[in-house]
């Protein structure tokens, strides 16, 4: 059975249909958690922020003019909710955390190094990395969530991965 379009669900939710809103939440929860995780660096806090974003969205729903752009609108709310949850708009992790990168290139160290490399990325690139690799989202889906073209997403992903690869090489990790 084909999915109902977002705009239809949003309109129903505006008219008080809780089931439609729940369907929208189910549809975008992983993406919102990924976005919040890219800001907070912690999955549990990211889930809290995503849920808070849905609560904020309920309040702001009547203000939404372009119902087709619901996902991008929700993503913006989620980003703000995540930033609010860290109090001051601090970054994904501090430079002190970055100094703890391991020098030995074993599997766990590689994962840590990747985390640190991701932490160093600009917020927009880090967000795309999380959306792409958190739940294996397609470019089309990421495009819907972020409200930008697939070409732009491809560009951001390419630049982000290049930076991560360079970072890993500089720190003694080589491709397997």
């Amino acid at each position, binding site marked *: 059975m084909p999915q109902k379009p977002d705009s239809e669900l949003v309109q129903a939710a505006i008219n008080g249909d809780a089931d439609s809103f729940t369907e929208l939440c189910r549809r975008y*929860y992983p993406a919102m*958690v990924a976005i919040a995780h890219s800001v907070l660096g912690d999955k549990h806090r990211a889930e809290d922020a995503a849920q808070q974003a849905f609560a904020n969205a309920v*309040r702001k729903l009547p203000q939404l003019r372009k119902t087709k752009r619901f996902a991008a609108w929700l993503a913006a709310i989620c980003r703000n909710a995540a930033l609010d949850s860290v109090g001051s708009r601090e970054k994904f992790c501090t430079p002190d955390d970055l100094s703890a990168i391991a020098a030995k290139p074993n599997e766990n160290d590689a994962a840590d190094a*990747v985390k640190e490399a991701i932490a160093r990325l600009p917020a927009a690139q880090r967000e795309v990395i999380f959306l792409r690799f958190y739940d294996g989202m397609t470019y089309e889906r990421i495009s819907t969530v972020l409200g930008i073209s697939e070409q732009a997403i491809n560009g951001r992903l390419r630049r982000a991965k290049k930076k991560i690869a360079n970072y890993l090489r500089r720190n003694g990790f080589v491709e397997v």
Partner: protein
Amino acid sequence: MKKQKDTKWLDELISRTINSGKPEFDPQKWKEKYPEEFRVLISSMQPIPKAKHAWHRAAQLAVAAAIIIVVALIVVPQGPKVHDRTQELSQVAQSPAEMMTLMSLNIAYRRGGMSAVEKQYQKAFEMLGPRQTNISVQQLMAEFDGT
């Protein structure tokens, strides 16, 4: 080729590092955590959808226009019929000469249009009685003057 190999290696590494399982949304927990927002959601206190709103406004305008027209029809005074006005005028203007003055004709026109003027002429001619077919303008004017 090397670039492709790099990307694949990186993709796997990034995926292993940040992918910690697909999060599932639990609506029941969300309702419990945000009861106020849930209440707002189901209270359906949102504004009327745009299409309905536009229709509603158009209907309001149509009703308002209809009311204005009806009120205008009721309020604007409807004077007596043209025939009555001509009669009124004839009562004021006693002689055919008075009825044929520019002022009398003007008043008749204002009150009843060309038909009232025509009736006033007819009335004046009736008062003058039957005329001979060939009559000079001088004779006609003399009769109008009542001389």
